[in-house]
């Protein structure tokens, strides 16, 4: 079956983007290192663990380790995706592919769409393969099948889309490395803010503050409002991981983290298309 006329160049550009990125030695090295790291964790699934004189259930340990590695892989992939995305447009410009593609009967939106799609597919595959390794290790060592693990991985792919759109847009406005650092800043603040929010809303902290002071209800503080509107990279990841083992998810703020991320993707995507359409090459 042939792809529709408008879709065909997008798929081709996506395919070439994927192929070009995989060709890079640095990509292969990063991927092998990540896969080795994940494979090393298989030792954690073997044998029982003694804590405070009590033997822990091997399955319980496996769940904990799986969740931890889930977070490490999801966060690590965001980092790798940012690295891949930051040089994509510049590389195409330097290697002459940008003018080569745009001088053909291909619209600019098709080019951008192809680039986004290629990077997204690549980074999702990167993360999914690593998560699949964990999935198989758990299956082989404990016999447990965790389908939620792969669903959670899929949900984290929206974080990767956010990363791609942000870095591509910023790389049109500033040097590549600055775009990468900005994204890192957004990510670090997101993770720190979620941590602080979780601590502030923990039972222990609530009890401590109630004992010490009793403030009149003056509405949400400014930082709380800023926190609600900040891109919820960590929130989406937490929510996705809560699906593993069907744990309760205590929502962070009035907006669901996934809705927050999708909203940002929409806004950033629109800006990216607009900016690229109005850029001289």
């Amino acid at each position, binding site marked *: 079956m042939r792809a529709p006329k408008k879709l065909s160049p997008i798929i081709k550009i996506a395919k070439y983007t994927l192929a070009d990125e995989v060709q890079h030695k640095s990509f292969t090295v990063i991927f092998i290192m990540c896969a080795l790291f994940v494979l090393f964790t298989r030792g954690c699934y073997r044998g029982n663990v003694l804590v405070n004189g009590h033997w822990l259930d091997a399955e319980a340990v496996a769940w904990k380790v799986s969740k931890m590695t889930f977070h490490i892989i999801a966060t690590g992939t965001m980092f790798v995706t940012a690295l891949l995305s930051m040089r994509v447009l510049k590389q195409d410009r330097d290697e002459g592919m940008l003018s080569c593609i745009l001088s053909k*009967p291909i619209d600019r939106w098709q080019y951008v769409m192809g680039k986004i799609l290629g990077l997204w597919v690549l980074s999702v595959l990167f993360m999914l393969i690593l998560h699949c390794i964990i999935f198989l290790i758990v299956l082989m060592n404990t016999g447990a099948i965790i389908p939620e693990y792969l669903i959670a991985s899929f949900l984290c792919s929206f974080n990767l889309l956010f990363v791609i759109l942000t870095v591509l847009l910023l790389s049109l406005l500033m040097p590549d490395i600055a775009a990468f650092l900005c994204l890192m800043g957004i990510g670090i603040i997101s993770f720190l803010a979620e941590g602080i929010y979780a601590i502030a809303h923990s039972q222990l902290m609530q009890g401590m503050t109630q004992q010490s002071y009793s403030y009149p209800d003056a509405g949400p503080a400014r930082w709380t409002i800023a926190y609600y509107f900040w891109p919820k990279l960590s929130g989406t990841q937490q929510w996705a991981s809560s699906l593993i083992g069907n744990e309760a998810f205590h929502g962070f703020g009035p907006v669901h983290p996934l809705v927050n991320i999708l909203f940002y993707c929409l806004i950033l995507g629109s800006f990216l298309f607009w900016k690229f359409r109005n850029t001289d090459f």
Partner: protein
Amino acid sequence: MIELRAVTKQYAFLKAVDNVSLSVKQGEYCALLGPNGAGKTTIVKMLLNLTWPTSGTLMVNGLSSSNASCRNAVGYLAENHCIPPHLSGWRYLLRCAKLLGLHRHDAIDQCRKVVELIGMQGREHTKVHTYSRGMIQRFGLGSTLLGNPKLLILDEPTSGLDPIGIREIRQILESLKHRGMTILLNSHLLSEVEKICDTAAIINCGKLLLKDSISAIVRKGETLEDVFVRLVKG
């Protein structure tokens, strides 16, 4: 084939192209001449919608240059043409053919013909980073010939080439004349232009100074270079 009507391109403090009107008919080999910074590349980029005019209209194949369909039958060779170093010349050509919407069999067939035309048989499967500048330029020119274009826009196709390379490129361009192709050639090599092109448009400081057939521009005892220097230096 190409029509520019009162085209102006204004950058922040610079008028790169100033009210240029120009037309190139089908089958015409037209040279776009001018000193560095005259606005030649800006005109070429506007024709390909890589940049936009501040005012005026540009038509390619009877369609506005902003319409992607007008580039259906256009081949473009950029100044200092590059090819991703990890690709082979063949892969690059195949990629270009597929981006033009050619089906696999047609793409392979056309790539074979092009490799033969540019005289790169036997070297097409080696990686681009092993190629010389002239070989890259030949593959670049080859990529513009895919999809049987009616119009070629060549921005400095001989830049960085040795005399033999220049001659080979010229021979390829001359061989295309029989196919009824239109060429807009942006070059500094006036002696080559004189041999290949039918008409020339001379631009300086964004303004079109003259557009006529080369035989009409060059008087007896003069070369195109003499005319160029006379016009540009005022």
